[in-house]
């Protein structure tokens, strides 16, 4: 891919700094994902932050290396599974004699736990779909050969 930024690969400072930062970006993405009930953010923001870490890796170390870390298959499955997880939580609550996406029935003993579990699961689904979709769009744009 011949983005002007691709020349970053040769820049030592960019390589070292991004290598240092990428783990923290990914960690921050996970924090936003699982701490969404208590702090700002949620699945959508977490997914985008998580993906931006991978995109940074792709920009600095090349698309080929990034696709070795996260192949197309993972991206496709991730995007589909996230949405499927969200829908399944809704269907599961239907089977447990609740309304669609009524999380309270998910835990038979404590409705509050069911509620938190439901929100955690659907946020996970949103995060998975968003992060995989963003990566898919990045792959599709960056992987095209210059006409």
């Amino acid at each position, binding site marked *: 891919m011949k983005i002007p930024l*691709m020349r970053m690969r040769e820049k030592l400072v960019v390589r070292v700094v991004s290598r240092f930062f990428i783990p923290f970006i990914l960690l921050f993405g996970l924090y936003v994902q699982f701490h969404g009930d208590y702090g700002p953010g949620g699945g959508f923001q977490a997914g985008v932050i998580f993906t931006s870490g991978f995109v940074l890796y792709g920009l600095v170390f090349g698309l080929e290396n990034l696709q070795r870390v996260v192949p197309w298959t993972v991206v496709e499955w991730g995007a589909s599974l996230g949405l499927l997880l969200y829908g399944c939580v809704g269907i599961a609550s239907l089977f447990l004699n609740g309304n669609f996406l009524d999380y309270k029935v998910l835990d038979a003993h404590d409705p509050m736990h069911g509620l938190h579990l439901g929100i955690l699961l659907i946020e996970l689904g949103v995060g998975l779909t968003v992060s995989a979709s963003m990566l898919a769009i990045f792959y599709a744009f960056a992987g095209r050969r210059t006409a």
Partner: protein
Amino acid sequence: MIPIEFLLLAFLVVTAVVIARLDYLFAAAMLTGIFSLLSAGLFTLMDAVDVAFTEAAVGAGVSTVLMLGTLSLTVREERERPLRILPFVIVFLTGGALFLGTLEMPAYGDPTATIHQYLAPDYIAGTEAEFGIPNIVTAILGSYRAFDTLGETAVIFTAALGVMALLASGRGRKGEEEK
């Protein structure tokens, strides 16, 4: 309003004007990222941290990269064109109409505004009582409006599907063999 908001707004206006004037598309793409970062700062000052998060990650991060990716497929300079009056007038009039519209809106943060009277009190009171979680935005998105969020997730998934179908043809196992 405190001065830093004026400063950010002034920077926003300057960035917007510069983006419109620039012919060098690479710099314009980078400036849209800066525009998003400034907006994220404004959202933070308005206590909309969730929106600021999204703006910073999507606007300043991913979409700037996508724009650069698009630039690599096309030319880096905008073609020279004579200044046309009609589009300028239309943009000016639309902007003016929008500006006039904001004059009718309730003041920022006014608790008596209609939008803060309808469902918001229920959400604010209900989040703590029913959910026991402090982030009202999560409660609204995840539970009160879970159907909407399901739809939004489906929209994002569909967008990715569309981009994959349009742009990523011949990728995957077949594409690897081609190389």
